[in-house]
């Protein structure tokens, strides 16, 4: 393992949103996440797990109330002027709903060119050219340029969104549920496009999804989120073969085609994800975990390496997954 500085990293980042008087919801709770140059990191979790908020915190759209976001090792809060612009250019996001992410009153070419216009980069004709090139890279026919979002299909709109994210020639592309709103055939199309573009633009990708089949198809590594916490993080193969957290196990068992780990036995989780306004004490997962013990209701587990490169946050890891724990990793 190389110990190079991660491209983008979150260090115990906490995001709180105020709701009403002096109450707030902790959407993301002391999360650590490293995005290494060239990789595709998959972030998976149910809706309400805070995965989208992680992405928003990374690019400054959500208020970071604790912890630090770093770009190539430097605190992004210290950025200003030129440095801030470089960071904004380098990290771009593709949003979930292709339709609502495009301003209905602007043409496709206007929307795609806008990041360059905002940053005031180069002459107008050069910006127009860059935008047109991005649109052709995502495979959008030229006659779509002057159209408005409602005149495009869902797949075409998402291509336009991707083009807008690529127009600044970014190093990191954050895809927030970027195919969730599309039907299955289109999903595959867009996912293939993303993989091609990753090569072509030499991108590092943070891919956020609730869909394990999508994530496992794309990602080199996977981080699993539950109620504002990352509960497990490992290379895709490792986690799919042998998940080391009861929640990941449950997620995998719901996707028999992806997982080989628990064939046959499908683990059904009881109840819904608890409200992040009043999360359960101890391990956040204890209310739905089939293996929850008393200690799980009191002590909050930390995310620790179990095997090199494979981290899990489970108090009962040694009972539940005997033989998988390497003592030197724990130390």
């Amino acid at each position: 393992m190389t110990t190079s500085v991660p491209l983008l990293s979150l260090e115990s980042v906490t995001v709180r949103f105020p709701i009403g008087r002096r109450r707030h919801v902790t959407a993301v709770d002391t999360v650590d996440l490293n995005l290494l140059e060239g990789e595709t990191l998959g972030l998976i979790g149910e809706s309400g797990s805070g995965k989208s908020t992680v992405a928003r915190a990374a690019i400054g759209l959500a208020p970071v109330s604790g912890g630090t976001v770093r770009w190539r090792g430097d605190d992004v809060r210290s950025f200003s002027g030129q440095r801030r612009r470089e960071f904004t250019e380098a990290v771009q996001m593709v949003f979930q709903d292709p339709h609502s992410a495009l301003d209905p009153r602007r043409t496709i070419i206007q929307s795609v060119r806008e990041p360059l216009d905002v940053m005031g980069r180069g002459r107008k004709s050069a910006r127009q050219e860059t935008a047109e090139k991005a649109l052709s890279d995502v495979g959008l026919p030229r006659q779509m340029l002057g159209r408005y979002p409602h005149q495009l299909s869902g797949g075409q709109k998402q291509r336009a969104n991707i083009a807008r994210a690529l127009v600044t020639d970014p190093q990191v592309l954050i895809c927030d549920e970027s195919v969730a709103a599309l039907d299955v055939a289109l999903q595959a199309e867009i996912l293939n496009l993303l993989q091609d573009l990753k090569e072509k633009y030499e991108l590092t990708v943070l891919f956020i999804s609730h869909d394990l089949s999508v994530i496992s198809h794309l990602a080199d590594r996977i981080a699993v989120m539950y109620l504002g916490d990352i509960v497990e993080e490992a290379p895709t193969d490792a986690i799919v073969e042998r998940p080391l957290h009861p929640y990941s196990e449950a997620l995998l068992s719901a996707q028999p085609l992806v997982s080989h780990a628990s064939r046959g036995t499908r683990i059904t989780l009881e109840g819904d994800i608890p409200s992040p306004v009043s999360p359960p004490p101890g391990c956040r997962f204890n209310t739905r975990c089939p293996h929850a013990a008393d200690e799980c209701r009191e002590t909050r587990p930390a995310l620790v390496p179990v095997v090199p490169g494979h981290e899990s946050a489970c108090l009962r890891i040694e009972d539940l997954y005997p033989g998988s724990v390497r003592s030197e990793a724990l130390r």
Partner: protein
Amino acid sequence: MSVITTHVKARTPRRRAGRLAVWTSYAILGAVLVVVLFAGLLAPYSPTEQALDRILLPMSTAHPLGTDDLGRDVLSRMLHGTRVSVLAASLAVAIAVVAGLPVGILAGWRGGLVDLFVMRLVDSVMSFPAIVLAIGITATMGPNITNAMIAVGIVLSPAIIRLARAQVMAIKSETYIEAAASFGAAGLRRMIVPHVVPNIIQPILVQVAVLMGFALIAEASLSFLQLGVQPPDASWGAVLSRSYVFLDQAPLQIFVPGIAIAATVFAFNIIGDEVQRLLDPKRK
């Protein structure tokens, strides 16, 4: 089966009646526009020239609407008055929009204390009966049509502020706003003008039509009370005011300005409804 037939029966006349009102309204507004633009060409006489030998004449071919107590041709005064009334109402609405739109956008966009203060202020302005406050402002600033329309603009601006604020709050959390913020769009030039204003403007235009109606009635009211248009100038309200004094001698002369006001206000309201219907996304 019966359900279907009643449904069809119910639909057809409704459409027809609705379309009739809409086309009538377009015709009325078109006619008003022509008069506003060409009042001088259309009017057979000067609106202010007195002829004391021809006072309070009934309708005739020479004076289709008769003459008033100073022998002035009522038709000419109505045509010139149309221009004055419509321009005055437009001024009031323009003031309401120019004052109200930025404030409403600011309140909706910033939220928090700014919003709280603006909304309190709006509430308190709205706690005055609009006409009474307009009378108070005009009477204090000095009665003339410009002051009257400034006053009407002030009392109408809360409607624009409220609407703009509500619209901004509705679109503020849209993803395209967030997307624009993600690549650094911010401020008046990069966020408010390109993204916020175009997406909130349609309902405001509907409101402008409704406010035009209100401003026309306000002009007529204030001019009737002699707080607006001052003699010898003509406006719909001024003509009404003058002819009302001689109600018992020429009762028909109050008829025409009233119908002109009612028809124009009606047309603005119908067109406002129509535009709203056309803009309704559920229609598609």
